[in-house]
């Protein structure tokens, strides 16, 4: 295999997938990140990474919800507050948004792969609209994607097509909605 260096990868990917843009100030420090624009690009780039460029280890797959400050109603109120506090004193601390940070109403799936021989890491990112976040599954490339995608689906509600059994894994069955979304509001269930 040709000697792979960071710049080497960028040309190969640029040549094969022109629609991939390389984020100049690499978002994750020390990890060159490639922004894919469509599902097929995303799958094609990752397959290229795996087969041609020797990135044979999937570090992790996760998603980020860029909507804005996290909604305080998403948290369970303290079931037994300190009895000495006057009534209603315990208020969940409100998290303010950073005014000059441009949030956007998107999810962003981040996949980090690593190539041990060349000691290189690469991240592939793709933005998904909030309406129906769909993405082809990486199950047939790496079986570890099975549980990592199930967790991302369970906590952030991102559909992965072609996943063998995409259902909740971490949160209990009676939880509706996806907790890690910024606009998640907790529905009072029988255990509160």
């Amino acid at each position, binding site marked *: 295999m040709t000697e792979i260096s960071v710049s080497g990868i960028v040309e190969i990917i640029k040549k094969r997938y022109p629609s991939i843009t390389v984020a100049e100030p690499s978002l994750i420090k020390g990890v060159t990140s490639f922004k894919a624009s469509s599902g097929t690009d995303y799958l094609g780039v990752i397959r290229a990474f795996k087969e041609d460029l020797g990135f044979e280890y999937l570090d992790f797959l996760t998603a980020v919800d860029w909507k804005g400050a996290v909604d305080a109603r998403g948290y369970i109120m303290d079931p*037994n507050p300190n*009895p*000495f506090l*006057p*009534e209603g004193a315990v208020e969940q601390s409100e998290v303010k948004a950073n005014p000059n940070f441009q949030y956007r109403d998107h999810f962003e799936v981040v996949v980090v792969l690593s190539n041990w021989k060349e000691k290189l890491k690469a991240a592939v990112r793709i933005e998904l609209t909030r309406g129906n976040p769909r993405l082809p599954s990486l199950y047939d490339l790496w079986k570890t994607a099975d549980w990592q995608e199930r967790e991302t689906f369970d906590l952030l509600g991102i559909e992965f097509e072609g996943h063998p059994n995409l259902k909740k894994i971490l949160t209990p069955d009676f939880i509706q909605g996806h907790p890690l979304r910024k606009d998640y509001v907790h529905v009072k269930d029988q255990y509160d």
Partner: protein
Amino acid sequence: MAELATPPPPPTPAPAPAPKPPANVMPPEKAVPAGIRKVFAKHTEGTLLPNRLWPTDVWPNPWKSASYRRGALVLSALILAGTGAAFFLREIGVPLAALRETLHRFAEANLPQVPSWAAEAVWILAKALVVLHIILFNGLFLVWWERKISAHMQSRLGPIFTGKWHGVLQTAADGIKLLLKEDAAPKEKDSWLHSLAPALVFVPVLICFTPVPWGRDLEAANLDAGVLYIFAWAGLSVLGIVLAGWASANKYSLLGGLRSAAQFVSYELPRSFSLVPLIAIAGSLSLTKIAGYQEGYWFGFFPKWFLFYPVVGQISFVIFLIASVAETNRTPFDIAEAESELVGGFHTEYSGMKFSIFFLTEYAYVLLASCLLTTFFMGGGAAPLPFLSVLPSWFWFLGKTLFFMFCFLWFRWTFPRFKIDRLLDFNWKFLLPWSFVNIVLALPYIYLWKL
């Protein structure tokens, strides 16, 4: 949860500020409310140890710590007292025979209307009671001993509080607890068989102890077919185990019962075949004759035990030892009750007194196996060195049995567990063929060299 009555807001500060306690000193009185029942009335003031003794501080020379020295002292005192008592008690066999004679003469002299065999019946009943009590007290002692041995092997203390010294009454306390425990068993159990099973397991062990020669002519009954008698009765308790498994109407205990039946039956074979050379050499099945045959010494000092027969003795000893450990269902062969998915094996649905009978049977089998090992391989009652025979034979028998019981405990706390299929492979493909080879190897001993 009690309904939380929201307390009134704390009162406004008392007008007169409380006297200022000096900054760094705790207020003297510390209200210790009487409400808490003092669990250990005498030991409220726990002594504070200096900061943690590490093994590197304690172990380099343990004789520094007073408790270690006291323990060693007490242990050696016990052993010396035992040998001293044995030295004075001499051979119990002779006075017992005399006692039997006086009993007979007393019956003939002044109880003419009583039939002639009545005295002998009373004598046999007395022997039976003595043997029964040996087994029950052995249960008491062995449970406590196992817990202490396993504790010290794992560098911990074991039971301390119940008895005066080192939790001696721990087993008695457990026994009483098990007596008072409610016998909770499933509704769908076959109640009659459910209570029959423990009896069917325990009674054969009692009967097996008749031919055991506790010392020179101290056996309960000198049966000519002693070995056959023991293996015949021991085979019966398999029935009890399978019955227990089936009667508790629980899928897991049925599996456990069948598994231990398979293990029990398959280990019966090498156990008996490994004795064939010994019986052929000693020329008789009676345990007393086998023990008697091994009296005497080679070259004046080396005891003529079957264990020291150059090749045959060691092989049959090892096979018999492994098979006996398997017979008693103890680690490394305790797949019956300790396998993680069988939960409790055949005695899952037993509690209270029935469970303690299973528990007692296991320890009775350990005692039986140790007695057999001593009689067959270490010439029960024969002193290891000529001049040592000043001590009575039952003392040597007791010492060797304790050693073998220690080995059973030792194996339990060192080895992991076999898997069911590997356990049966080990038996059928290793122990059994080697016991056959052992018989062939023993031919020269039987016919050529009369050792």
